[in-house]
């Protein structure tokens, strides 16, 4: 049996040669470095790799924005696809211009990421393995078992390491604003490190109905604040309150924008 790499390479070749797609976005290993690359038919596809995991959605957006028309293929994991769907809902990418090569993550990868859905809707390569429900996050459970005082102490000690580098925001595929309230004096005091609670809470609320739990924020955080723990809680609640999950269907509206008739609110 072929390795996933080999299978993906074959699929990319098909798209480039048979379907005459001008380019396919994937990861390329070059001189020991791995980074995103748009492969075209002239490229050596053996350089195409799948590891380490790399968020493709923002790269996709940048490429699409850079050329006014034309289609693009992309090797997309579950989180990439969900990110793209959310971005499409928010008018940031045009899904019609993308051809997704669905890559399912392995069990081990899913565990590492605490991923809720380690597979895209259509799997081209790999096998579907079960994800972790957002509420099952061990840290979420542990915190919920504590009282509010203890939770406050925990988050204060975490947030107090924050150096306000905005890394979490910058890598987030669903944080779409150019003008960010976290840089506004009236919402977050300037020149103050660590920033006060609104910095983290406003961001958490802004992505609460969009976060696809890709974990990019936490990976980017230089001081290891467990941001996905905070966001996993809001995803768990979003599911319980509205029976809604971001990133699944581009036609679904966020429950926070609809009436109670359109999306009911379930009591907890």
């Amino acid at each position, binding site marked *: 049996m072929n390795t996933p790499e080999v299978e993906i390479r074959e699929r990319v070749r098909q798209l480039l040669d048979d379907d005459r797609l001008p380019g396919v976005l994937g990861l390329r290993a070059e001189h020991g470095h791995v980074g995103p690359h748009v492969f075209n038919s002239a490229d050596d596809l053996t350089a195409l790799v799948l590891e380490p995991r790399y968020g493709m959605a923002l790269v996709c957006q940048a490429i699409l*924005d850079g050329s006014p028309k034309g289609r693009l293929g992309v090797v997309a994991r579950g989180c990439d696809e969900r990110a793209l769907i959310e971005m499409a809902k928010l008018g940031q990418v045009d899904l019609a211009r993308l051809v997704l090569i669905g890559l399912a993550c392995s069990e081990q990868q899913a565990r590492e990421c605490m991923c809720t859905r380690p597979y895209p809707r259509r799997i081209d390569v790999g096998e579907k393995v079960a994800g972790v429900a957002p509420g099952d996050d061990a840290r979420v459970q542990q915190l919920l078992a504590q009282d509010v005082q203890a939770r406050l102490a925990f988050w204060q000690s975490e947030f107090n390491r924050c150096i306000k580098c905005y890394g979490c925001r910058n890598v987030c595929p669903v944080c779409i604003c150019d003008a960010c309230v976290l840089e506004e004096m009236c919402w977050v005091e300037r020149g103050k490190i660590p920033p006060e609670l609104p910095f983290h809470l406003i961001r958490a609320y802004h992505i609460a109905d969009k976060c696809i739990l890709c974990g990019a924020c936490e990976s980017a955080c230089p001081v290891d604040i467990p941001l996905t723990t905070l966001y996993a809680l809001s995803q768990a609640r979003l599911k319980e309150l509205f029976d809604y999950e971001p990133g699944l269907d581009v036609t679904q509206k966020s429950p926070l*924008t609809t009436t109670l008739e359109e999306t009911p609110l379930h009591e907890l």
Partner: protein
Amino acid sequence: MEQTRIGVFVCHCGSNIGGVVDVPAVVEYARALPNVVYAERNLYSCSEAGLSSLKQGIRAQRLNRVIVAACTPRTHEPLFKNACEEAGLNRYLFEFVNIREHCSWIHRKDKEQATEKAKRLIRMGVAKASLLEPQEETESNVIPAVLVIGGGIAGMTAALNLARQGFRAHLVEKQARLGGWLPHINRLCPTDEEAARLIDSVIREAQAHERIILHMPATVQEVSGYIGNFHVTVAEKEGKCTFDVGTIIVATGAEVLQPLGLYGYGRFPNVITQLELEERLRPPPSPSPVNDGGGKRWESTVFINCVGARIPERPYCSRVCCMTSLKNAIRLKKQNPAAQVYVLHRDLMTYGVEFERYYRRAMEAGVRFLRYDIERPPQVVGNGRAEAVVVWDTLRGQERRLPVDAVVLNAPLIPASDNATLSRLLKVPLAESGFFLEAHVKLRPVEFATDGVYVCGTARWPADVSESIAQAYAASAKAAIPMRAGAVTAEAITAFSVPERCMGCGTCVVTCPYQAIELRIANGGHVLSGTEGLQKQVAWVNVVQCKGCGSCVAACPSKAMQQRGFTDQQVLEMISVISGL
């Protein structure tokens, strides 16, 4: 920039405020607040004396923001805003602080704390007032023309009424003739007048009126714009026709359920619908008295009510059918007094004076009534043709077998099949039932939430002729209001977007209950990184449609959306006053 000069006027309201709150102390406090250049107290700020003192203060102190600390804005705000305007100050530079209902009246026992609270409230008011900006109420013109969709009795009534008031009325009817259902009806309940006479005279009036433009057969294909300025495209036989109107009235009517498969309809030739009976009863050349076409007089007729209505898949009552049964049952009795005429019904909906009187007339005429239960519905039995109706009589507690020459099925009005299309075109909602959904069931029965679009007649809900006409007039009145004024103005508490901040995510568009926001490619909008000439869309608020709820503002993640008079800055400033104390 002009220096901010705030004046604070604190009202005693006799002893209502003054008896609890230490007003002189509050005035002293207010005088020392940032940007406050003047403070005074009045026995009654709303009295002539109080108002002239306010105006005097504005002029003499060159105030450019005014605060009145008194009672509730819900009743008195217009009064003070008008006074500001009379003194030459933009009315949106006024801020009301409620220290009566929200302070002195509810804290009568603790004068000291009440005084402190009054100070806090005024300080919050001052904080907000410092950030107030003058606003212009936007006015937009209204084209003095209406589009009426539907040429039935409701549509024609509306078009005629508005034409007579001096407006041009475009009447669009999809069929090749006017009149809707009425030309198919024999006589009308409860007056028994001939439907044809009524509808014919209205059709003649509509055709003759110089300000009514008939589009027929024609359908509305495209509508854009908003109250005052709708652009309409109508598809006619000879191609397309476009015109502009200020208002739109939906009078597209309803359809009647075809009861196929119910009670032997379609199986027995002598099981007919009410509408088919109407056709037979209609004068001439319809055969009279009613017979089955073979010449045999109907000696025994059974009407069945609620055919396909008030059942789980169609739970509503169609309001007008009971009366139709009564009317035609009486008619049959008149034509043949010896005939047996039964009406099988559930609840008999003869509401009001006239219909209840009609019900009694039917009983006097010898029409028999039998109450059936939906759990044990009537059975139409026969062989080749209906021979009898077998039914459980709930009031007698026994089964009856009624021999029949004919069975007449009374089926409900159902929503017109093209409602969904029209709903999309006009961006107005349909209710679950499929009829159009008005802005408020109780107090705005003929308006849509979207300004400038109205609904009447059976498009909204089953209604009889006089109800449809009354509603048509009502819709006309609503349409006439902006058209007579020639312009619409919106209170300047509307939302607005700051294009430089907007990412065009559309959250506001989905959230807005009035479809007042759209995404537009706008100059000065957010330009995509790395591209030239390509622009993303940004939110644009149509202030004429915006009602100022602020739902979009709260939903906007970049705070590109703001609300006049309720900006984030203003509210955060008020909050910081309390937190800083």
